[in-house]
């Protein structure tokens, strides 16, 4: 039986993309699998009794070494901010290509803590900073120094000791360009080195609390228990900086979604599910309930989604009691039922679970999740207006129905803030700056393009059309990209009054492998990464389903 890939017109809607969950395809899970046989080492740990100083951690294999250099700094409480306008952080990090010399560390000490204000070189691969969750950090240090383990229930409320507020790579602030690393044999997919940085930062946070506690009370202090450590991740505060990424990288977006959709299609095409596969699915489903029950948020928007998710999961459990997993194409039947009976949040949740038993389906798809975007950048000037019209009508069918004369459908605009060079989103009828709008209103501009070609001859070559119409060149390019990459475009209006920008963040974060999405407004959210993940010294032999094993 052949199952069709899901329709991009449905899947690429913001509300659906904003319901995606981590899965086997998520980058942090892939990263751990790909680097599990690398040698982990803490090669420098030069902190003072308060925990300030420098530390270096590395992963090595054969001739290759990646080193995380950590700079822990003293900052005042009033200086601690997760916002991108902050200029000081509790700790700053860079992932160095190789083993750093003392000279390198001295150079980086002057630059890494400044983050956007510093300059990096091609030897540095990624850059980040993080702030303590003061409540958690102090609680853990206090308890450890008194010889007792921290309160797991309290830790579960947050799930981490530090949260990063940005992770940069790919040439930002002088960092190595992607071309320098993309062909390395250990780099199988996107964002691997960003994941490595975050993973090593997590270990630093554990070592730092142990170190401070030991200095505070040398006779009584104990180390953070491995079980407790394992169930702590790294938090992240993410704002709109991430949102334009998925618009600006259409072929990459396609490859992420296509991998997920292909995996789902193949799972649905399996005729017989064996007992082991069924058990893995059900076990992940049941264990994951813990992740939902500890999913804390003050956001009414997210609370409603979580409540819906729990209600839908209850429906699903009732249905599963009588469901015949031994029948033909059981996962397809189950999928058709959830699609009909459950809401987006739960549908995508179950899709992630359905992939869990199938390494043999998922693993080969992972290497296809990168993209050589330059290959698809040129506009085929010899194609015709007829070709373009056909593409627009076929691929942007829903978007062409949006009425952009209606103010509510074009209320917002995307811009880059001057003070931090970060993307922002504002009401064009209330704020200044709409004349400097970024080219992220794809739906509106596609509609404009469609109207513009209305009176053009079918046989007119695109190259000649563009002579007089270069103002729409950016969407002509996209149209010829979506022709080949069906999941390359958000099938929604990104500037309407009812857009929830964090849906765009959630999509990207789900592919990173984040959990516990906690919107703090409609424009930024907090998440947790690597909670439940094996510790570095456990990587040689770990359970790939660790994400469901959190005790929190």
């Amino acid at each position, binding site marked *: 039986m052949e199952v069709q890939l899901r329709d991009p017109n449905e899947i690429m809607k913001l509300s659906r993309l904003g319901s995606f969950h981590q899965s086997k395809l998520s980058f942090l899970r892939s990263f751990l699998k790909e680097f599990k046989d690398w040698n982990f080492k803490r090669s420098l740990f030069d902190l003072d009794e308060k925990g300030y100083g420098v530390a270096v951690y590395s992963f090595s294999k054969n001739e290759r070494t990646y080193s995380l250099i950590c700079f822990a700094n003293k900052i005042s409480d009033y200086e601690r901010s997760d916002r991108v306008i902050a200029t000081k952080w509790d700790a700053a990090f860079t992932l160095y290509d190789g083993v750093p010399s003392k000279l390198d560390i001295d150079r980086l000490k002057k630059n890494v803590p400044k983050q956007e204000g510093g300059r990096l*070189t*091609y030897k540095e691969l990624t850059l980040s900073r993080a702030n303590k969750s003061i409540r958690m950090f102090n609680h853990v240090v206090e308890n450890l120094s008194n010889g007792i383990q921290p309160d797991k229930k309290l830790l579960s409320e947050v799930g981490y000791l530090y949260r990063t507020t940005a992770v940069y790579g*790919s*040439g*930002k*602030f*002088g*960092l*190595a*360009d*992607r*071309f320098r690393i993309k062909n390395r044999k250990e780099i199988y997919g996107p964002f691997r080195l960003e994941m490595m940085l975050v993973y090593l930062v997590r270990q630093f946070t554990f070592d730092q609390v142990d170190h401070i506690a030991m200095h505070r009370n040398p006779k009584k202090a104990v180390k953070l228990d491995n079980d407790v450590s394992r169930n702590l991740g790294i938090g992240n505060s993410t704002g709109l900086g991430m949102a334009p990424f998925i618009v600006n990288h259409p072929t990459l977006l396609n490859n992420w979604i296509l991998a997920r959709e292909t995996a789902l299609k193949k799972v649905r095409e399996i005729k017989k599910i064996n007992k082991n596969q069924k058990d893995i699915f059900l076990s992940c489903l049941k264990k994951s309930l813990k992740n939902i029950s500890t999913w804390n948020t003050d956001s009414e928007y997210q609370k409603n989604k979580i409540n819906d998710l729990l209600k839908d999961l209850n429906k699903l459990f009732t249905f599963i009691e009588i469901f015949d997993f031994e029948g033909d194409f059981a996962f397809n039947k189950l999928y058709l039922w959830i699609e009909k009976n459950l809401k987006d949040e739960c549908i995508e949740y179950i899709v992630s679970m359905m992939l869990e038993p199938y390494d043999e389906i998922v693993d080969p798809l992972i290497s296809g999740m990168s993209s050589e975007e*330059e290959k698809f*950048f*040129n*506009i085929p*000037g*010899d194609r015709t207006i007829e070709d373009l019209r056909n593409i627009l009508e076929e691929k942007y069918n829903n978007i062409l129905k949006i009425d952009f004369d209606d103010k509510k459908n074009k209320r917002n605009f995307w811009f*880059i803030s001057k003070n931090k060079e970060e993307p922002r989103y504002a009401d064009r009828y209330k704020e200044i700056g709409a004349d400097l709008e*970024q*080219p992220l209103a794809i739906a509106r501009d596609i509609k404009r393009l469609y109207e513009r070609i209305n009176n053009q001859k079918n046989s007119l*070559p*695109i*190259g*000649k059309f*563009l*002579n007089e119409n*270069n*103002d*729409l*060149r*950016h*969407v*002509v*390019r996209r149209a010829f990209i979506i022709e080949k990459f069906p999941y390359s475009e958000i099938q929604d209006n990104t500037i309407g009054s009812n857009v929830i920008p964090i849906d765009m963040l959630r999509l990207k974060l789900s592919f990173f492998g984040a959990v516990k999405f906690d919107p703090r407004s409609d424009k930024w959210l907090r998440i947790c990464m690597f909670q439940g993940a094996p510790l570095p010294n456990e990587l040689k032999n770990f359970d790939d389903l660790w994400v469901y094993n959190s005790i929190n």
Partner: protein
Amino acid sequence: MISLSEIETTSKRATRAVGFSWGVAEEVGKNMRLLELFGLSGVKNLNEYFKSYKKENYKSIQAFSETNEASSIPYCPIELGINFLDQVTFIEKFQKINFKNIAFPILFLPFLSRSSEALGKRILCKIDQKEFLFNFNQTIYSNYLKSEILKNCELINISFLENINTFSQDEWEEIYKLSENTFVEENESLKKDAAGAGLTDND
């Protein structure tokens, strides 16, 4: 050192800032990345070009002919380049094409490099005495290595090179014969037992 990613992003924004559309700005961003990657002075020329862009009112081109002359006001290298790239499959039929009087011709070069890739043909370009051979956007061979601002050129001469060998048939046969020394001569026994033995192609 400024990364190529920073060069692309900043050039794109600067191009938009002087008044080009976002789509054109994207092209220029990619071009600056290419020029700097190949060791040509992209940013330097782009910066200087933008200083004169508004006041000079450089000329655009709509339709191409074998010889294109921009009277007293030079061609804009970006608009010329964009139109060249967009229409290169039509322009190719000229085999050779000339442009007289182009401003900042270095900025035109990446469009030729990308055109070479789009066509699947090498492109040879002579800017006055400077030669550039564009190899499918993989490399640029040139006798010009100066990092300088070229404000103008009198003549650009472009040739589309046919995909032909750079060696003679005799030279090919000579080297092929040498390569045969890595093959094993099959005796009767090997012919009988080797993979495919006993089958006919009609099976």
